[in-house]
């Protein structure tokens, strides 16, 4: 959705509504001094040029209008990326992948390869605005030509025989131009009128108003508003002239109006013609002018000031009058900010249907928060139960919080569910689609790779990482290495992480055809003690299906990745955040295993090799000692294990521990723990029996 166009449309509709209100007020304000009405037109002008109003808790303009949520129905949505045309591949035309499995439904039409609609509409708008400006420029130039030969009469006043009606022209040094054949008496009153224009700075306000109108050239109501504004300006000047005059002079002024009203008129855009429109109306107004009482003027001015202020107000970004600074959505373990348009829509519907909020006395169940809206002193949580629930919490004086839960019913519930559907669309269609448009843009530089991984939100699931890209020789295969700083420590974590990494890899291979393989390495770069790594390949050696090549398939992979990721969130054993050693032990392996041909060593054998290597050697006679030697210690290790994060509730009895020794090194530093059949391996400084562990990992095997 094009932000510029939607902002413009919202402004235009809002301004039109305000103009409509002012037009109604104008009828009421007729007997009162016209400058008040002109001031109200100023409010319309502000709404035409300012995209946002004053943030007020209450506004005379309904939020349904100012939030601009309807705009997306007026403007066409952006089409999908043009890459849906057939990619250059030998595989059968991928367009057929969009067919649902063989049921013959026609594929979704490929996005048309023409200019995107928003750009076209913006072009049309620019052309229209340009035409309106051009017309004003041409009129102005014509005028200047006409008065080039005007001769001065008095200071600032000129006359010309090419001019048929008096007017004011010029911004910085405005001049009054009079027709040459103007009778002296008429001239006197005309000058009074034109000088009133100058005094009121109308030679500035009318062109400014016209400029604003050019921006909104497509809005007919605003053209009408401009015409009425011009009339009000003339009327205000008439009133300024006759205010100090007596009855006779007023009659003469009316006569002047009559004399000049018989001539041909100028187009309204041209600055400040004497105005031959509506001569009858003006004469009538002049003759029937009665100055109202001062108190009435002051009261009306005050009321209009208030009305003007509230017409400028926006209640956007507020829920029940309180400001909302941001919205977050929780989805599959990720916390994402709500995009502005969605947030505005949500606030708008909550405000519109606030009658359908049923207060509850207490929350009868707990479930995960779906949406969180935060303000300075309030926050609102929305979560799904049988009905969607809204919990409003206010903090009063710091820590104390009062929570009021509400159930969303009726129209509010329906509107919310409809809104949630568009949220889902954003999360699962718009976001992956945006990512997919990068396809082919390569992960070939570090920055590009980092950005893509950032957008996949890898960090939410794997913790911090660093990225390295290696470019091989032609045809430039790329190797992506991701160093995950935070190692999973428990084998059970591994079981969850592997499928997640498979899916993430699948998504990455879909985005970049040149990726040769991805090396997921556990441990910071350059760490010495056996980093583990998990390699993923695009052609399925890691056991995955062919990576998706269509946008729809990518979307699905993305969704699965997020779902898998929520299970894969790595929980560290508390103290090991700065561990250098990365050990990773996959389930089901009870020892060093041979690399099978064709399989990636997707499992971490380093652990066992490390231990095994330390505990085996060959002496000079070629005798091979390969049995680690364990001596179980008598003291229980429950506390030790608990301290390092093992849940005592899951295990019964007493844990035992031992130092792993080999023939040469009595203390290799490794410790084995066994608790209730579960075996753990830890490492500490050799020589310290009960020293602090630098890691602890659960093994799936039993020691030999």
């Amino acid at each position, binding site marked *: 959705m094009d932000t510029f166009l939607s902002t413009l449309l919202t402004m235009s509709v809002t301004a039109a509504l305000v103009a409509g209100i002012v037009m109604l007020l104008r009828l009421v304000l007729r007997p009162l001094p016209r400058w008040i009405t002109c001031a109200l037109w100023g409010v319309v002008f502000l709404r035409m040029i300012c995209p946002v109003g004053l943030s007020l808790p209450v506004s005379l303009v309904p939020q349904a209008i100012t939030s601009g949520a309807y705009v997306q129905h007026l403007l066409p949505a952006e089409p999908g990326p043009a890459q849906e045309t057939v990619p250059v591949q030998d595989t059968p035309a991928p367009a057929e992948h969009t067919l649902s499995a063989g049921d013959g439904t026609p594929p979704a039409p490929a996005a048309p390869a023409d200019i995107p609609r928003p750009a076209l509409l913006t072009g049309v708008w620019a052309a229209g605005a340009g035409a309106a400006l051009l017309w004003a420029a041409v009129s102005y130039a014509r005028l200047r030509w006409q008065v*080039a*030969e005007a*001769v*001065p009469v008095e200071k600032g006043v*000129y006359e*010309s*025989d*090419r001019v048929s009606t008096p007017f004011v022209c010029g911004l910085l040094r405005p001049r009054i131009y009079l027709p*040459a054949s103007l009778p002296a008496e008429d001239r006197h009153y005309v000058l009074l009128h034109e000088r009133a224009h100058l005094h009121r700075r109308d030679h500035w306000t009318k062109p400014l108003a016209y400029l604003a109108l050019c921006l909104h050239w497509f809005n007919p109501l605003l053209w009408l508003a401009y015409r009425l504004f011009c009339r009000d300006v003339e009327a205000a000047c008439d009133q300024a002239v006759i205010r100090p005059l007596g009855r006779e002079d007023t009659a003469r002024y009316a006569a002047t109006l009559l004399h000049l009203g018989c001539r041909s008129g100028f187009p309204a855009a041209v600055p400040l013609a004497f105005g031959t429109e509506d001569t009858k109306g003006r004469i009538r107004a002049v003759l029937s002018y009665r100055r109202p009482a001062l108190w009435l003027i002051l009261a009306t001015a005050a009321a209009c000031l208030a009305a003007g202020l509230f017409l400028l107000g926006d209640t956007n970004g507020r829920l029940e009058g309180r400001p909302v600074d941001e919205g977050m959505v929780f989805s599959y373990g990720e916390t994402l900010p709500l995009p502005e348009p969605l947030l505005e829509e949500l606030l708008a519907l909550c405000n519109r249907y606030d009658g359908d909020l049923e207060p509850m006395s207490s929350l009868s169940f707990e479930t995960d928060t779906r949406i969180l809206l935060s303000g300075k002193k309030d926050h609102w949580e929305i979560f799904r139960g049988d009905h969607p629930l809204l919990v409003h919490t206010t903090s009063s004086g710091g820590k104390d919080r009062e929570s009021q839960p509400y159930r969303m019913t009726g129209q509010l519930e329906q509107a919310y569910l409809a809104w949630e559907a568009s949220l889902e669309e954003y999360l699962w269609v718009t976001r992956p689609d945006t990512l997919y448009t990068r396809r082919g843009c390569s992960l070939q530089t570090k920055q590009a790779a980092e950005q893509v991984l950032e957008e996949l939100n890898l960090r939410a699931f794997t913790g911090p990482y660093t990225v390295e890209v290696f470019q091989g020789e032609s045809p430039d295969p790329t190797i992506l290495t991701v160093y995950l700083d935070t190692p999973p420590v428990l084998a059970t974590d591994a079981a969850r992480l592997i499928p997640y990494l498979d899916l993430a890899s699948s998504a990455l291979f879909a985005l970049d055809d040149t990726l040769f393989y991805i090396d997921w390495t556990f441990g910071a770069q350059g760490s010495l003690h056996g980093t583990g790594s998990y390699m993923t390949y695009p052609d399925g050696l890691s056991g995955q299906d062919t990576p998706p090549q269509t946008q729809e398939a990518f979307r699905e992979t993305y969704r699965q990745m997020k779902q898998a990721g929520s299970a894969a969130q790595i929980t560290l054993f508390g103290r090991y955040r700065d561990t250098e050693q990365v050990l990773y032990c996959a389930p089901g392996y009870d020892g060093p295993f041979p690399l099978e041909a064709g399989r990636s060593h997707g499992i971490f054998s380093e652990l066992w090799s490390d231990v095994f290597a330390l505990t085996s050697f060959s002496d000079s006679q070629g005798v091979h000692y390969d049995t680690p030697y364990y001596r179980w210690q008598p003291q229980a290790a429950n506390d030790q294990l608990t301290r390092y994060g093992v849940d005592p509730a899951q295990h019964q009895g007493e844990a035992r521990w031992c130092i792993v020794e080999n023939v040469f090194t009595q203390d290799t530093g490794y410790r084995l723990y066994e608790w209730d059949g579960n075996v753990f391996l830890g490492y500490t400084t050799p020589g310290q029996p009960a020293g602090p562990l630098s890691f602890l990992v659960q093994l799936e095997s039993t020691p030999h």
Partner: protein
Amino acid sequence: MKSPPSLSLADHRLLDLVWSSEPISSPQLCKLAQAQLGWKRTTTYTVIKRLCDKGCLKNEAAVVTSLVDRATVQQADGQEVLQRSFHGSLPSFLAAFLRAGSVSDQEAAEIEQMLEEYRQSH
């Protein structure tokens, strides 16, 4: 001489300037017009050219002189007003002023004197 073509207000004013300052170089005339009328140089040159085309001015070697005198122009102006508004009738023209009562006693005496002189010379 042939009857001068009708002159616009601008033409009149420039002619005024030329009558009061001729012969005058065209650049100086421009300066004068700028000072007294607020005209741009291009405007002044346009009017000069127009008056030359109408046969009222001569612009040779950047020196401007007039080809008609004030009296001729006044007479032509008067004829034009007479023709346009009073169907060429001088009595109607005078009657307009007399009816409005806008002729003072002194002016009436002057007019009587002029008529007397006119009668006597024809």
